[in-house]
């Protein structure tokens, strides 16, 4: 077990007063709180900071910690003296919400904070909710799909010991779910303690980015590359949709960036269907031969066209 230097974690001096500790904590908490931070390791960082503050804000805990700190160095191996006994009663501070609770180091000093009544017969608590991200392919949002979900719950066994158990469910995902939407499966979370009700399972829909289609609300966008002559003369091209290929008529003299609407080929939303937009993109052929070079040359001479006319207006 590593020794944690709580002063170092909060970035304060060992003789810092209460106000300095509070201010350092608040600053770091705003930076790393998982509900506001976009830093990748925010949760782990916040836990460290919260743990340090939990100890240093409390005069009694701080005094005990200072006592132990004389034997430890930050990041170095540490065991509390065998006769060590904390006199503080560790309350349920709730910082454990983000899962995992306090570090082994903290618990070795101040105890685990497990509710003392957990094994008593009359102790009742609702089971933990489970939150999971559920990746869904765009194709699977068009109709109700049954999707297998596996997850782990922490539940008391016959002896009241908390153990992990794997659960598998087939979940019916309704048609028309959108990115970020949550689905609640009542009572499918962890079992309650002492006969308390089970927690819920919450699935957060994550639409998997599609290689071809971009999502805009319940409309889809596909980029359609066109040869210059297809854009100039018009064409009939085959375009993929989520439900198979269709033929799309490209009008003559089309431009890059132009959008063509394909009705009803978007995503499903509240019973009605969005549209698919084909965005045109004129692309040049690679290289070419002497003949094609001559043909471009003829075009250049016969078509009066200034693509940069906009610039000369200024």
């Amino acid at each position: 077990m590593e020794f944690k230097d709580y002063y170092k974690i909060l970035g304060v001096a060992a003789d810092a007063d209460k106000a300095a500790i509070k201010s350092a904590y608040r600053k770091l908490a705003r930076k790393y709180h998982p509900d506001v931070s976009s830093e990748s390791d925010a949760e782990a960082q916040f836990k460290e900071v919260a743990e340090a503050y939990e100890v240093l804000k409390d005069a009694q805990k701080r005094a005990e910690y200072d006592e132990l700190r004389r034997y430890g160095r930050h990041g170095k191996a540490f065991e509390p003296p065998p006769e060590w006994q904390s006199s503080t009663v560790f309350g349920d501070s709730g910082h454990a919400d983000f899962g995992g609770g306090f570090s082994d180091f903290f618990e070795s000093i101040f105890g685990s904070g497990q509710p003392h009544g957990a094994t008593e017969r009359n102790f009742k608590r609702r089971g933990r909710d489970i939150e999971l991200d559920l990746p869904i392919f765009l194709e699977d949002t068009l109709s109700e799909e049954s999707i297998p979900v596996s997850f782990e719950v922490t539940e008391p066994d016959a002896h009241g010991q908390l153990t992990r158990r794997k659960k598998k469910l087939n979940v019916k995902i309704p048609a028309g779910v959108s990115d970020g939407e949550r689905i609640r499966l009542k009572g499918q979370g962890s079992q309650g303690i002492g006969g308390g009700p089970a927690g819920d399972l919450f699935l957060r829909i994550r639409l998997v980015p599609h290689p071809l289609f971009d999502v805009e609300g319940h409309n889809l966008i596909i980029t359609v590359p066109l040869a210059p002559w297809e854009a100039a003369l018009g064409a009939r091209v085959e375009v993929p949709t989520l439900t198979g290929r269709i033929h799309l008529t490209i009008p003559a003299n089309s431009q890059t960036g132009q959008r063509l609407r394909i009705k009803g080929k978007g995503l499903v939303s509240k019973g009605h269907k969005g549209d698919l937009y084909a965005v045109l993109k004129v692309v040049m052929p690679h290289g070419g031969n002497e003949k094609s070079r001559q043909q471009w040359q003829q075009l250049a001479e016969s078509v009066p066209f200034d693509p940069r006319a906009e610039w000369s207006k200024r």
Partner: protein
Amino acid sequence: MTSSPKAIEMSLDEFILASGVAGDTLLLMIEEGILNPHEDTAGEWRFELQMIFTARRAVRLHRDLEIDWCGIALALELLDELEQLRDENRILRQRLGRFIKT
């Protein structure tokens, strides 16, 4: 096993159970506009599923950052806006990437 999540709405009692947030705390959140349950024809509040997460988030911010409820209302509004802008930015970047090589 599930119906459309949008159709699931909860009464105040159901919401207290599902969110694990105390009733008097919820009242403060409603007062500050952090939660906006709509009223049914009988004048009873109806809560949407998504509000469970808003309420829990507000509780954590209140406890961990020691922000008052009024400040949380503002923080949540700005955080939502930030998230929307980030999403929009991601989508636009992805679309732009189909037109220009970066």
